[in-house]
């Protein structure tokens, strides 16, 4: 703004500092986008961003972790984290204050609203009001009194149309009006007749000609409403009525006031209630206008509702209450009050004399039973018989079809022709079907299809119907339970049937036919029964069958005689038929006393190994069936029994070798059947076997360890002196041989006491010549021994017993090490005759090899625990030897003792 302009403006009288004067209309640059994005409701929001809010703007559908549906801190739940658990407060003190907790207490307003809504009773379907109901009448009456007709008409037109049912509306359209009966109009006479039938007698008799000229609507049928019985009085009893009253009698007494039942007073202010009235007072009936009403009048007058105008109705219902005139019997005596003469004579029961029983007649109930023996099988009558064998198709055929009925009635048939499925098929298909049918009929023109009788249940009454039983089922049933053992004849027929069914494929013939006295139908039923029995009584299969054992002797139950038993003296006692069936050749042999090969059966039997052991018998080799379960059962038994059996003749060393030998073939065979005992072991069947068959080392092993007295140590020293001519230093340096060393040691050590570990076994290894077991010994002194030695060195004067537990603890931990050490010591002892043993046992060698393999497989790490010590030993000399001058060292025992001493010193 220039100064000139300012001046000008001043002249004009405009304040240049005002906002108006300073208004800027220039727009320079593009405007920044608005800070908040404008809400675009139609904008696409990804699903995870979408929010659901209720009508109050509260967020619904929180995530499952933030409270789920409509919950959470911001809606209704107490805290941000969710539900706050209420701390327990004893309500013991204020039990009186405790109020019952209602479900509403836990509802939020939505739920409460919902609840309120659900409580509202809405009658949505209004009753059809035909004007006859009380409500309608009341409404109409009210309308009539208060408003004039014009106003009501206007109101009716303005008001919504009355809620009529569809039926009522239709009726209305057809000319029906309220209060009329339904049906075509009738003449005056007809109407009168109808009235008379309904018991309505017309009071005003206007038999003018005019009335007869018109047709009248029918009388409305009164609607009978039965009132609910909500009291405990007897049926038909009206409370408050005396007996005579309810009978319609009239007493003559003119007593004022209610007649109260005797013994009850009535207070001055009280009105006589109906309960106070003496209901047994006969005089009561006459009093009061209300009580005069006859029982049925009293009830029905109130509740009888007719579909008609109220005035008419009242008139109608009043009329039938005609007082009954007194009646008299034929002989002139009057009928008792309350009774009426029956119009129909009473029917008397006729009594007839019992027919004469002929003097020679004897009761024989059996005749009756036999006559009705198969009553259920026999059709009752001729026509029933036809019906009994009528299948559904026949029944359907017997019925007339719609067309037939139509033709009988003379209707013109419907134009649509009958369509068959062939019409829908192509020509080619039709031809194919036709050819197939021709082939079938040509193939077997005369023979009836065998399957038809088997499968289909419909058959002609006179032909034998053979039910189909699958051969396998029949075969099984032959071996299974025999249901008809009580009736041998039936049983044989059953068996024959099963045999027939079992090889029905071969076209076998049923070995029997209907009995001479048996009709075909009965026979068919019998056969069907057999078929059913076969399926029912076929033996159980598989695992279930193995749980049951069938009895050797089938008990033939005594034949029960039905009904009353009348001892018949005339009939001689028929001896039971000799059942010399020769059912068993063995039994025959027994009867003849021919015991021997006939009665003897030989079969292989595998006794359990433990049993043989207990009996001191060598287990036999039964090759027939060495079934696995027995083996499985016996092996743990031997395992358990073996250690306890030290007292037996069988010495332990063979046991051990046995165990070792037992492992070997198992590993080589390993194709035995899988069972529970060896499942889960993978391919290696003797996996973990050595842990199971762990033997406590022999006593001298322990002696060798624990009885480490002076003499022992002396011996040891001697031994080491003897055994270690070679300098161990170069051995320590050669690490490659170190790797092999433990194996050899192990191999030597793991073979137990009976087999002295031989250094001669070593040639088996990779570098047989180089490795000398004796040289490695110092490196693999077991920890326990080391400890012991240390102790010994430290406190020579200490008791040996003190060292023993230390050792034993170690020994328990690492049993294998003990073996190693033991073996070593043994070795030391026996090293003199080393060469002698070298050629001795080759199998021991093999065993060792196997052991070693096992050790490599399974217990490598346990073996290699021993590895560090050599390294320590290796490092020790390096550190210590120069720093400390060797103490009084035996120059001969270079490595082992030296190292031992050093370590002992070191640790002190």
């Amino acid at each position, binding site marked *: 703004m220039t100064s000139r302009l300012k001046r000008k403006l001043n002249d004009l009288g405009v304040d240049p500092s005002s906002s108006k004067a300073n208004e800027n209309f220039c727009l320079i640059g593009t405007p920044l986008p608005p800070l908040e994005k404008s809400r675009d409701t139609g904008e696409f929001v990804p699903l995870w961003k979408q929010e659901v809010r209720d009508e109050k703007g509260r967020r619904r559908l929180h995530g499952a972790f933030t409270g789920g549906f409509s919950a959470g801190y911001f809606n209704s739940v107490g805290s941000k984290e969710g539900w706050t658990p209420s701390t327990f407060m004893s309500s013991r003190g204020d039990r009186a204050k405790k109020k019952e907790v209602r479900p509403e207490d836990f509802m939020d307003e939505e739920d409460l609203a919902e609840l309120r809504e659900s409580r509202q009773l809405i009658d949505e379907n209004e009753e059809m009001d035909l004007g006859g109901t009380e409500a309608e009448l009341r409404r109409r009456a009210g309308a009539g009194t208060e408003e004039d007709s014009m106003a009501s008409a206007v109101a009716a037109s303005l008001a919504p149309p009355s809620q009529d049912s569809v039926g009522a509306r239709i009726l209305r359209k057809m000319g029906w009006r309220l209060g009329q009966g339904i049906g075509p109009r009738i003449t005056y006479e007809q109407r009168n007749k109808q009235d008379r039938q309904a018991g309505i007698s017309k009071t005003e008799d206007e038999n003018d000609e005019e009335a007869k000229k018109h047709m009248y609507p029918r009388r409305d049928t009164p609607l009978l409403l039965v009132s609910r019985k909500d009291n405990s009085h007897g049926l038909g009893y009206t409370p408050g009525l005396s007996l005579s009253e309810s009978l319609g009698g009239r007493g003559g007494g003119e007593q004022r006031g209610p007649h109260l039942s005797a013994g009850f007073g009535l207070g001055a202010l009280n009105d006589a209630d109906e309960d106070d009235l003496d209901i047994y007072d006969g005089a009561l009936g006459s009093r009061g206008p209300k009580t005069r009403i006859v029982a049925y009048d009293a009830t029905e007058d109130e509740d009888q509702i007719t579909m008609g105008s109220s005035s008419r109705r009242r008139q109608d219902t009043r009329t039938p209450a005609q007082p009954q005139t007194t009646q008299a019997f034929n002989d002139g005596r009057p009928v008792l009050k309350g009774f009426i003469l029956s119009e129909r004579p009473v029917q008397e029961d006729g009594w007839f004399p019992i027919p004469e029983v002929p003097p020679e007649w004897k009761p024989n109930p059996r005749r009756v039973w036999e006559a009705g023996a198969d009553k259920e099988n026999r059709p009752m009558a001729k026509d029933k018989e036809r019906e009994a064998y009528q299948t559904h198709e026949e029944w359907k055929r017997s019925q007339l079809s719609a067309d037939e009925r139509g033709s009988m009635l003379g209707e013109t048939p419907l134009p649509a022709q009958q369509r068959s499925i062939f019409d829908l098929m192509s020509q080619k298909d039709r031809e194919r079907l036709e050819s197939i049918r021709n082939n079938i009929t040509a193939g077997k023109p005369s023979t009836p299809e065998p399957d038809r009788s088997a499968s289909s249940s419909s058959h002609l009454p006179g032909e034998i119907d053979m039910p189909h039983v699958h051969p396998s089922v029949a075969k099984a049933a032959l071996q299974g339970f025999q249901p008809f053992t009580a009736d041998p004849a039936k049983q044989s027929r059953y068996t024959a049937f099963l045999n027939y069914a079992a090889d029905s494929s071969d076209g076998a013939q049923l070995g029997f036919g209907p009995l001479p006295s048996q009709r075909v139908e009965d026979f068919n039923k019998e056969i069907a029964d057999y078929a059913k029995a076969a399926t029912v009584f076929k033996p159980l299969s598989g695992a279930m069958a193995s749980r049951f*054992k069938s*009895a*050797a*002797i089938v008990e033939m139950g005594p034949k029960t005689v039905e009904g009353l038993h009348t001892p018949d003296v005339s009939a001689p006692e028929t001896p039971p038929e000799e059942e010399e069936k020769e059912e068993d050749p*063995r*039994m025959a*042999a*027994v*009867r003849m*006393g021919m*015991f*021997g*090969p006939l*009665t*003897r*059966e*030989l*079969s*292989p*039997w*595998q*006794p*359990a190994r*433990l*049993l*043989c052991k*207990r*009996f*001191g*018998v*060598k*287990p*036999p*080799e*039964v090759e027939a069936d060495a079934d696995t379960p*027995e083996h499985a*059962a*016996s092996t743990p*038994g031997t395992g*358990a*029994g073996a250690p*306890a*059996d030290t007292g037996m003749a069988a010495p332990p060393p063979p046991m051990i070798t046995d165990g070792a030998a037992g492992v070997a073939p198992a590993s080589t065979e390993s194709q035995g059947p899988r069972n529970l005992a060896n499942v889960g072991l993978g391919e290696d069947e003797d996996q973990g076997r050595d842990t199971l068959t762990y033997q406590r080392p022999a006593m001298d092993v322990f002696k060798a360890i624990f009885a480490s007295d002076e003499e022992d140590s002396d011996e040891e020293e001697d031994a080491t002196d003897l055994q270690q001519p070679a300098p161990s230093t170069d051995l320590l340096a050669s690490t490659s041989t170190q790797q092999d060393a433990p194996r050899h040691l192990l191999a030597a050590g793991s073979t137990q006491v009976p087999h002295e570990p031989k250094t001669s076994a070593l040639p088996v290894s990779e570098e047989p010549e180089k490795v000398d077991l004796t040289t490695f010994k110092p490196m693999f002194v077991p920890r326990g021994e080391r400890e012991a030695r240390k102790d010994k060195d430290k406190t020579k004067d200490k008791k040996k017993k003190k060292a023993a537990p230390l050792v034993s603890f170690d020994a328990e931990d690492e049993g294998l090490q003990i073996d190693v050490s033991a073996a070593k010591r043994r070795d030391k002892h026996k090293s003199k005759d080393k060469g002698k043993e070298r050629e001795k046992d080759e199998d021991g060698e093999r065993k060792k090899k196997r052991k070693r393999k096992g050790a490599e497989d399974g217990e490598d790490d346990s073996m290699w625990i021993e590895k560090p010590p050599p390294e320590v030993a290796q490092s020790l000399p390096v550190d210590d030897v120069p720093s400390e001058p060797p103490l009084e060292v035996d120059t001969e025992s270079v490595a082992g003792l030296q190292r031992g001493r050093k370590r002992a010193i070191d640790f002190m």
Partner: protein
Amino acid sequence: MAGPTREPTALARTLHTTLSNHKGPVHVARYAKGSAKYILTGGQDRTVRLWNPTLGTEIKVFAAHGYEVLSITVAHDNSRFASAGGDRSVFLWDVSTGATIRRIAGHMGKINAVEFNDDASVVASGSYDSTVRLWDLRSPNRQPIQILEEARDAIQALWVGNGTIMAGSVDGHVRTYDLRMGQLRSDFIGPPVTSVVPTQDGQSYLVTTLDSHVRLMDVATGKMLNDYKGHKVEGYRCRSCFGHGEASVICGDENGMVWAWDLLEGAPLPPNPPPKVHGGVVLWVEHHPIEDGEMISSAADGTVKVWRHPSSST
């Protein structure tokens, strides 16, 4: 063979003592092993009683059974015995303390017969459930060493010898399980078998069946060597045994008589018929294993009678 001669000696028929403390039938009466100075009896009254037959005194009552005692077997060293019955378990007793060492359960039905093997390391039990179970007494294993399930009906008699187990069953078979050969020989006798007693040499065995026959069968061939009849055994488990020196066969019968036959001849020894000595069915007879003139019989009248020759008054 214990006796040098096969000449049958007359049965001891003089009543020495009557042991009548049992209430109800006495199902079993057995001599102790060794010199057989004592008798063990078991009866319906659920007790096992130890007797001195010479004095006729009752030494001990072993009462732990909850049901009747049907069978007793004595260990070779007389230190233990086993009994069984309706409890469906075998009770192993210590004789001196009178307490049960073990109760071996496993059978499904009542046990009709128990038998130790020679060194009492195995006890065999035959049951109504038609199995014979062999229990190891050396190990605390609760499972039987083996179950012999070949029988198709209740086992009534058992014999465990050296390397053989014999089981007589109601199905009419005597099954011999030969451990050495690994073989089962089942001999069909016919009627239900109530007792099986082999000879000492194991060459033949005595079978009592419910058709009132006692048969001597050959083990090797299964042939019948002899048949003893005259008595009546039709419904009860009556046991037969060999007389002294296996020269005679003794069997009690249901009329309360004790029969004796010449083993070879098969004819009843006099008196024929024998006198009725028991008031009920003679359920068990057992001859003294060593003594010539002593035998015992137990019967359903609740008594056990000790018979001796009048001469042997010891």
